[in-house]
């Protein structure tokens, strides 16, 4: 063991030591959590509204004060001193404790909400009961485990968002992006849906009830958006409901492709998305833990694209299951729907294989062909064999397994619970079908790229280390190549931490976006022409 490893065992020295103020701030934050914990163990608080306010205030104030003490006295600049010395951010003891605590929380949240105090018929107890006053204030209804989760989620994005704003106060891209995720979380994910719930039963909705709808959540991230009960709810809610349904469809097929073309998938993943919002704020301290190895990249490609196939099949099956067969009742029937899905997939597949084939690795081509054949075979199988089980399984089975495996286990328990172990973008990188679809477009058809600044790279590795998506940014930068990767969420941290000003996120013409010339590695043109010959 070399000496620098040994010194990490020393405790209580800068840069990893906590100041006195930070210790008090931690205590305040923890006391806020303690109130929630006590409530979870059914300690009955007399004035719930007051205790909830105290708890949330303490959590926020603790985080904000801690950050203020960490950054306010320092000059603007990169603040990564001691990241790999602190046990919380380097998979040390506290990292594992935090990981286990978060994972347990998610397991209880998804599968045992009764331990949080959820009561089906009757008034809530425990920690959910503590949140009742706030829920009633917003939507008029009692709280659910999802309301508790949503509130804590928003508080986390807000408090850690403030931390991030201070940490990167010299970087306007980071500041504006962070304000954006804070806004979308607070307004779109938290407040608007609760207020929308107040309209339910109102005559403006023709007496119908809207489903809970976070408007910025797009299918397939929002995999349940087109399920039968939601479609019914949309259609029963007058013009507003219908408009929301149309918006849901447009956001998949029109808004997302246009914005991804213009700005890359970052417009969503690191500016709007709630999962991204939490990863960028509360998860920022863990971004360096993502695995950069080539093998991890391989796993990522297979897993995330499999999820896309899964969600496509599942959604097709679910929509299929509630459609009718009679064209006179409704124009969209089971058969027309299946044919349209097949046609759409074929068009995309053909376009990619004809025009973009040369940009794929061999395994990507095999994978694409394989999955395409499977989907088409399943659709065809159904089509020629009459009714029965769609895609070999009941649509309900597909839906339930997707929701369990992907919706709960992957995005929640693993995706967020394992922040301190695998980094803050595990879900976004390995699991999110929305990210994969936008990434597919970003790689093939978008103006976005990270430009490498000529020959200025010194291969230091800060960019790769702090890439939360596990992209080996340096591998491209040191060759003078631009970075065009489907997984890049455009957080901009590689550019921020680069000590030589080598990387710039930008949108520009498609031509020459990927195969940048290497002339500027510095030598004269003769040599570089030789080097560029592949």
């Amino acid at each position: 063991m070399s000496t620098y490893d040994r010194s990490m065992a020393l405790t209580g020295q800068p840069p990893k030591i906590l100041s006195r103020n930070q210790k008090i701030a931690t205590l305040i934050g923890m006391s806020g959590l303690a109130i929630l914990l006590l409530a979870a163990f059914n300690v009955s608080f007399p004035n719930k509204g007051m205790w909830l306010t105290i708890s949330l205030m303490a959590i926020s104030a603790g985080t904000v004060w801690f950050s203020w003490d960490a950054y306010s006295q320092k000059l603007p600049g990169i603040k990564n001193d001691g990241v790999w010395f602190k046990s919380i951010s380097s998979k040390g003891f506290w990292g594992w404790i935090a990981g286990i605590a978060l994972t347990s929380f998610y397991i209880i949240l998804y599968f045992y909400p009764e331990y949080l105090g959820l009561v089906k018929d009757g008034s809530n107890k425990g920690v959910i009961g503590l949140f009742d006053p706030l829920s009633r204030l917003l939507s008029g209804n009692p709280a659910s485990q999802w309301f508790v989760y949503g509130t804590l989620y928003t508080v986390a994005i807000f408090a850690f968002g403030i931390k991030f704003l201070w940490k990167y106060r010299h970087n306007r891209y980071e500041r504006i992006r962070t304000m954006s995720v804070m806004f979308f979380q607070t307004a779109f994910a938290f407040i608007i849906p609760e207020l929308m719930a107040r309209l339910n039963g109102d005559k403006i909705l023709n007496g119908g009830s809207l489903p809970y709808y976070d408007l910025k959540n797009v299918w397939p991230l929002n995999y349940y958006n087109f399920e039968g009960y939601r479609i019914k709810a949309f259609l029963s809610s007058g013009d507003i409901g219908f408009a929301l349904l149309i918006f849901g469809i447009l956001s998949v097929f029109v808004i997302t492709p246009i914005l991804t073309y213009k700005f890359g998938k970052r417009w969503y993943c690191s500016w709007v998305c709630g999962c991204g919002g939490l990863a960028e704020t509360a998860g920022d301290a863990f971004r360096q833990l993502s695995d950069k190895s080539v093998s991890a990249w391989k796993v990522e490609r297979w897993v995330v694209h499999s999820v896309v196939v899964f969600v496509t099949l599942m959604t097709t099956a679910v929509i299929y299951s509630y459609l009718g067969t009679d064209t006179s009742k409704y124009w969209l029937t089971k058969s027309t729907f299946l044919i349209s899905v097949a046609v759409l997939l074929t068009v995309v597949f053909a376009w990619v294989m004809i025009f973009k084939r040369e940009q794929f690795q061999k395994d990507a081509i095999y994978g694409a062909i394989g999955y395409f054949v499977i989907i088409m075979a399943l659709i065809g199988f159904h089509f020629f064999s009459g009714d029965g089980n769609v895609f070999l399984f009941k649509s309900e089975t597909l839906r339930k397994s997707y929701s369990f495996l992907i919706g709960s286990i992957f995005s929640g328990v693993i995706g967020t619970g394992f922040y301190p172990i695998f980094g803050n973008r595990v879900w976004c990188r390995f699991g999110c079908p929305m990210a994969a679809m936008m990434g597919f477009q970003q790689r093939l058809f978008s103006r976005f790229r990270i430009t490498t600044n000529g020959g200025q790279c010194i291969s230091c590795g800060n960019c790769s280390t702090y890439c939360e998506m596990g992209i080996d940014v340096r591998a491209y930068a040191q060759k003078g190549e631009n970075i065009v990767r489907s997984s890049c969420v455009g957080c901009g941290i590689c550019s921020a931490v680069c000590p030589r000003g080598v990387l710039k996120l930008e949108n520009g013409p498609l031509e020459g976006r990927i195969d940048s010339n290497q002339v500027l590695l510095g030598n004269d043109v003769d040599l570089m022409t030789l080097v560029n010959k592949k």
Partner: protein
Amino acid sequence: MENIVIIGNGIAGISAARHIRKLSDKRIIVISGETDYFFSRTALMYVYMGHMKFDHIQPYENWFWEKNRIELVRGYVTKVNPEIKQLVIDESRALHYDKLIIATGSKPNKFGWPGQDLHGVQGLYSKQDLDLLEVNAPNKDVCKRAVIVGGGLIGIELAEMLRSRDIPVTFLVRENSFWNGVLPNGESQMINEHILEHHIDLRLATNLKEIVADENGKVKSVIVAETGEEIQCDIVGLTAGVTPNIDFLKGSGIDLGRGVKVNRFLETNVKDVYAIGDCAEQHEPIGNRRPIEAVWYTGRMMGETVAQTICGNRLEYKPGHWFNSAKFLDIEYQTYGWVFSERGMKDYEAHFHWRHPSEKICITIAFNKETNEFLGINTFGIRMRHQVFDKWLSKNQTVDHVIEHLADANFDPEFYKAHEVAIVSKFNTDFGKSIKSRKKSLKRIFAMG
């Protein structure tokens, strides 16, 4: 099969190895006494500061070398015998070569100060130096004060490293302003201020007289030449430049000056022996460059060039337009073309300097006062596009053109405040011109590729 042996696994040696592999099937052996695998020397500081672990500063995964059939040998070459094309590793193992590339880099300068070899006195160049720093300065209790001698790039990096652990630093700089042998005054002044902002005890125009030992032969203090002041300290960092690391070649018959003497083809006086990177010394300087260039980028270029030569395409080392970069604590620095300090300024050279009124941002543009030709730019706190300046330098653009199109060259992240208007207006005032800043044009920028 031809046997290519490369001594040194730094950026020069590894670039050569990679490119030889790209171009040929020759057997490649890389020898290093420093580490098993190639790492980024410039990133050593980030390991001490906790930004990265040592693994992170290795640009290739460990399987890369075997996959690409680059054989790695750990050991110090102690002797080279070109007559029988043989070298000796660690005074025991002998190795035959058909072609030899010397890429052994540098070692820190020592100028014969009394006490320069005491315990607690060290440079910062190698992985071993980093390990030693962990022993000498693990924290502020063991190391109550550090003294750094020599105001260059490594000195300021070492200061930043020690400050990250809250160790008080006294920084002895021979010049009367930081790095003003290289930087023009305005820039050097700004860096002086920034060093003080970081609570570093900067002593300008101050020389080291001697390093004093305690009873165990460990450093106890240093004595300043000018005042005789004694500064108590637990570590002395010697960062007064570097020198080629070529002692093992003495008596081998290979022509040595300060470095290994090479011609423009990077060939030494001995057939089939080449030298690249920090340790190579050109017979004649190339343009405004120094005969020995201890810079990351030139090491890389020489490695690529020598690979061509070795693979049958004898190629001259022709570095393009000069560029470089560094970071002074929080301030990024880039340079394209030539901007000399007042000390080294050419008689035809004129400067335009602009500094932000409140932030630590400035630029200096050098141009030819007779022909108005743009010669180079230094930027601090603003990132600039390499490609654009390279084009401007190749086309011998005028300084007016550069000033007018400065926005095209900006490489700051999106949404950063632009300074072009302020810069152009200062230029107009200084030189009685009426140039208008042109808006950034993606068309112009990307058409340059």
